[in-house]
């Protein structure tokens, strides 16, 4: 037993048992029993004990963490990480920018990221079914804007096919390869993605589909919202009528479909860097740079007057068009989509 009677002021807190006791004075443990008893028998030490308690309380006083600090710092962190990734990307010169358009129905869709105006407004090769096919043969992503207000980022070596006008009940598209969807919300008309091995059905959400015929795993990953995934061995009509059970995946989840065994495997979705569009005090020009990078769309704007303007907005889970619309509302700008570019007009953010 230590000789506590000779303890100097300040020594008490060096005793871990003593600290345990003042942390939980009402607990019924060995420390509490001992020290309660000791304090009673050594009233001459009460000042030192009280001093130790107060010193302990002062050192351990909680600091208040502002409620918004966590999200604020996270937002900044996301922005930094994204610009870090951009900075690290070796700036390889864009080789031949070519996007093959098999059939185009220009009256209802705007095709972006094409690199040339030639393709825009062409109305040839529209077949009987009025299907439009866009293939991305570039080495960087490009974006297709659909008539219903949804946007699709089409990654290299991928194609998408969709009707000139969606039918009354469904918004149905076919893809092969990798595509990121930000679907305009419409509860009346489900959005249905048919890929090599899967059907993915949603009402409005953002998700990634990666599926080609030759692959042994197909993958659907959800950023926000909920999607239903079916194997393509399922009956299409039953899927459309909602009669079938599906793999339901929600926020930040993914399913991998083993095409040989026809089984679904669930995983957490970790490819979130590009998919978070939460901006906190982010320079507007920085946001535009990010959009150009992610969507492969050129943004034409007088950059000088926007220097020093920043944006606070959560733009995750909405189509590209909607993002531009909201930013323009925030900084009081006008916008129009033209070929592979968005043109913004306004007079700064003052």
């Amino acid at each position, binding site marked *: 037993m230590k000789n506590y009677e000779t303890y*100097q*002021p*300040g*020594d008490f*807190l*060096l005793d871990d048992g003593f*600290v345990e006791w003042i942390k939980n004075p009402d607990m019924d443990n060995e420390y509490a029993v001992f020290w309660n008893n000791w304090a009673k028998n050594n*009233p001459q030490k*009460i*000042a*030192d004990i*009280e*001093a*130790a308690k*107060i*010193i*302990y*309380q*002062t*050192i*351990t*006083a*909680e*600091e*208040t*963490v*502002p409620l918004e*600090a*966590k999200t*604020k*710092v*996270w937002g*900044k*962190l996301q922005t*930094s*990480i994204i610009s*870090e990734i951009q900075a690290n990307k070796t700036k390889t010169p864009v080789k031949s920018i070519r996007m093959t358009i098999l059939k185009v129905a220009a009256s209802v869709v705007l095709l972006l990221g094409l690199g040339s105006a030639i393709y825009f407004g062409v109305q040839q090769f529209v077949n009987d079914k009025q299907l439009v096919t866009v293939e991305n043969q570039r080495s960087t992503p490009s974006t297709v804007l659909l008539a219903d207000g949804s946007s699709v980022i089409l990654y290299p070596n991928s194609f998408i096919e969709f009707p000139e006008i969606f039918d009354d009940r469904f918004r149905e598209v076919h893809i092969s390869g990798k595509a990121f969807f930000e679907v305009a919300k419409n509860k009346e008309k489900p959005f249905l993605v048919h890929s090599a091995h899967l059907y993915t059905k949603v009402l409005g959400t953002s998700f990634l589909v990666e599926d080609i015929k030759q692959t042994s795993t197909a993958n659907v990953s959800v950023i926000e919202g909920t999607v239903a995934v079916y194997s393509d061995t399922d009956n299409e009509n039953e899927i459309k009528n909602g009669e079938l059970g599906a793999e339901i995946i929600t926020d*930040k989840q993914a399913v991998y479909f083993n095409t040989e065994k026809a089984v679904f495997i669930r995983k*957490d*979705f*970790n*490819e*979130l*860097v590009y998919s978070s569009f939460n901006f906190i005090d982010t320079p507007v020009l920085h946001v535009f740079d990010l959009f150009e990078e992610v969507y492969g769309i050129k943004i034409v704007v007088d950059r000088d007057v926007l220097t020093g303007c920043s944006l606070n907005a959560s733009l995750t889970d909405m189509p590209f068009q909607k993002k531009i619309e909201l930013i323009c509302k925030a900084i009081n700008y006008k916008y129009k989509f033209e070929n592979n570019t968005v043109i913004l007009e306004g007079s700064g953010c003052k």
Partner: protein
Amino acid sequence: MIEKEIWDGIKIGDYKAFQNLYSYFFDQLYSYGMKICNDNEQVEDAIHDLFLDIWKYHKKLSPTTSIRFYLYRSIRRKIYKNQDRNIKETVFEKEIETFFEQTGDAHDLRIIEEESKSLIIARLQVGLKELPSRQYDALVLKFFSNFSYEEIGNMLDMNEQSVRNLIQRGLKKLRALLGTGLLIFAAVLIFKHFFLI
């Protein structure tokens, strides 16, 4: 939380694990940061820089037995790197001497009578912040953040016994700071103890 899993996840670039790490540790790192620098912006910047580094160099992260220890040590370095600590420290050492001399004299009876626990705490808070920075650091790491003497020694680059001495000196100064004010306070307690029960 399984520390190893999270750390390994981050090492292979699992963004979700990274997010979990941030989410789990943000509050305690923030509050520790506020303890040692008391400036929201500096603390936020330090946390931001720390996590940016983690993600930036995630492939090169070395295996760690304690993520918590690693994070605290890093945040501490980040914050101190942003302050010119050395200059400040020497100034502090001088200030503290005069501070203690003054408080000794300033104790006239008039004040003592009005002294309450909250006043004592307020005075302690000032005194605490004015301690030589290494003493203050060690006290916070020991009592606020519950690190072991060994871990604290590791962070402060000194052996365990020196850490104990440092903490002892810090506590002694704080105790001296309370002076007679506390004795009066204690006397009231004793009085209550013997006559009011």
